[in-house]
């Protein structure tokens, strides 16, 4: 920049050199800003890479331990890590069965109710009803999961379940119902988005051919919105499997290999949080590594479900132009 001749005051003023300098500064600033923005978006990529590398590395520490065999991890139906029993069993099946029981109950509640609520909101409800229903669902979605867990302990188990059978203080059914409540707003809002994306002309066509509203919904609207609804179901399923606090509070901390919803059941997430919270896990010990092994299984399952949900949404999306 020093090589540029100074604009002399005598004679006509020449601003071109000044303009070049300011353009150059501006360009450099644009560059710097762009690099900064790219760096910031690298943070989210680094998070994913960090999760994958960490889970792979530390679960390798688990599976490379001489006490551990991969076969037993996948087939043994007892899990005693994190408990004060002498016998070492590390089959993940009880944790999987706990997750399965609670998720199944949650989905039995959230899927039908959520879908019907979504249909009602987009097809039947008057604006006045919608003005009440939508904030209600948003409030329900905003309730912290630890609060729902508390609700499961103090209300669902003693008042809803125990009058009907021999439900233990901590049981899979109460946790499942609470997780179902938690997934309900998610299913509703995602399916409603999918249903609303179906063009009006399809509805008018069905009604014009003499269909009742129910027939229009079942034969025309739902099939057209199917990909969005399936993807909503998969995302809700991933959410239910990954849910932690409700399960840690209401489902107890005993891993059980059964389908009985009345007994305590520890899930994968419940095991992880209980082990961390107990504060006795020495880094490098077997129970420390087992956290990562269980988390790796959990992460794989939820990742596959999320990817499948996204894929279905984009692959099978009906396009109306």
């Amino acid at each position, binding site marked *: 920049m020093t090589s540029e001749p100074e604009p002399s005051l005598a004679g006509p003023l020449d601003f071109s050199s000044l303009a070049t300098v300011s353009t150059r500064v*501006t360009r450099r*600033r*644009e560059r710097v800003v*762009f690099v900064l*923005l*790219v760096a*910031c*978006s690298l*943070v*989210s*990529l680094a*998070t*994913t890479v*960090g*999760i994958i590398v*960490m*889970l792979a590395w530390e679960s390798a520490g688990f599976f490379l331990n001489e006490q551990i065999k991969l076969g037993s991890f996948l087939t043994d139906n007892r899990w005693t890590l994190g408990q004060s029993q002498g016998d070492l069993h590390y089959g993940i099946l009880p944790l999987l069965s706990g997750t399965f029981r609670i998720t199944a109950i949650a989905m039995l509640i959230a899927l039908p*109710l959520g879908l*019907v*609520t979504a*249909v*009602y909101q987009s097809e*039947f409800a008057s604006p006045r*009803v919608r003005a009440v*229903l939508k904030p*209600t669902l948003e409030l329900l979605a*905003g309730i*912290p*999961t*630890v*609060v729902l*867990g*508390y*609700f499961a302990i*103090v*209300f669902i188990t003693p008042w809803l379940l125990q009058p009907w059978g021999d439900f233990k203080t901590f049981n899979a059914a109460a946790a499942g119902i609470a997780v179902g*409540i938690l997934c309900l*707003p998610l299913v509703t809002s995602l399916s409603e988005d999918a249903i609303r994306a179906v063009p009006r002309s399809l509805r008018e066509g069905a009604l014009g051919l003499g269909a*009742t*509203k*129910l*027939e229009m*919904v079942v034969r025309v609207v739902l099939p057209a919105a199917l990909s969005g609804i399936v993807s909503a179901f998969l995302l809700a399923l*991933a959410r239910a*499997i*990954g849910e*932690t*606090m409700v399960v*840690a*509070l209401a489902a107890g901390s005993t891993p059980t290999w059964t389908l009985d919803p009345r007994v305590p059941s520890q899930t994968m997430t419940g095991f*992880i*949080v209980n082990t961390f*919270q107990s504060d006795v896990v*020495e*880094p490098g010990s077997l129970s420390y590594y087992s956290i990562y092994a269980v*988390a790796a299984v959990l*992460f794989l399952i939820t*990742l596959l*479900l999320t990817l499948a949900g*996204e894929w279905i949404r984009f692959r099978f999306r009906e396009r109306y132009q």
Partner: protein
Amino acid sequence: MNPPPIQAPRNLRTAPTRDRRRKWFNSLFSVVCLLAAGLATVVLVTLLLAILGKGGLWVDWQFLTAGHRENKPLESGIGPAIMGSLMICAICSLFALPVGIATAIFLEEYQPQSRGLQFFHGLVQLNISNLAGVPSIVYGILGVTAFVYMFGAFGKIETGRPPAWEFGARHAWQLKSLGDQWLQIPDADPAQPGIRIEGPRPIRFADGSNSVLNVIAAGAPVPEDVALRNRTVRAGAAASIVRLNSFWYFHLPLHKSILAAGLTLALVILPIIIIASQEALRAVPGSIREAAFGLGATRWQSIRKAVVPAATPGIMTGAILALSRALGEAAPLLAVMGGVLSTSGLTSLMDKSPTLPVTIFRWSHDENVMFENLAAAAIIVLLLLLLLMNAVAILIRYRAEQQRG
């Protein structure tokens, strides 16, 4: 041959009955719909009533300010927990907001020109929708590995091991006088974990006042005067080192600290902030950008002066919703800091601190069932805080709509 009798087509003959059935099903379905939708309201109302009924009477000033007392529910409170939760929110917004908004600007405002950038763009976008589906407990484990232990980059991971690098730590030697007072000898050298007292030294009492140590021989009689006795020790008494934290105290790796927890939650809410900001930026009409370009603005100038101001209400709303998620999230906190309940508040960012969700979790599991009611009271406070944040978000949205006309 008789002509065959004229018959109406089958479906036509049954049409009246079938129509009635179809209509009946239709109205039945709308009733089922209404019931299902009403159930959500019923659940919400039941939940709020159950919690109000259990904890409503417990929320008072003492509860809002006191700390946790083991086995003394009547004296326990959530003062430190509220401070901890607010601190977590502050750390989250400090880290997640700039990074999240910058990522959204990169994704929305910079159309990739080259092949490589296009790939990077798509990768980041796909990655964000996946990150939003990762369970929060997995983030918690990432927080433990990446922030608490920092991948073991600072030596072997052991609990109780002092941090590898620290800044702003002050040390003192501590001992008890003959008058049963704790005394501190300031400016201790951390290399010497313990010393023996030989002669008089400057001391500080627990209340902060300074004095000088009075040393008497091993067999000498104890002084009668209380003030003197309080600063008297026998020769050869042992003093051990303690750490006094300044509020700027910092160390690496972060260990189980509120900073590690806040950073972890920042990662949890990052995808939410990015997605919300992207939507807000997308809603800014293209004409605003074109006008800025037309006036000679560069890309960044148009973003900074025109696009981001127009998108601010949307970004703020998304940010507040993300922060309210951080306020209610418990699982990553349990993983990173453990189930902390404590009587006192924070002194530095390197302290563990109780938070509202973790306090609720611990109290609902406490053996003393009285704490179950306290948990309900803490839930009421948490829900009120969340409601306040949402009200602010709604206000921002409303005012933006008013301005737009």
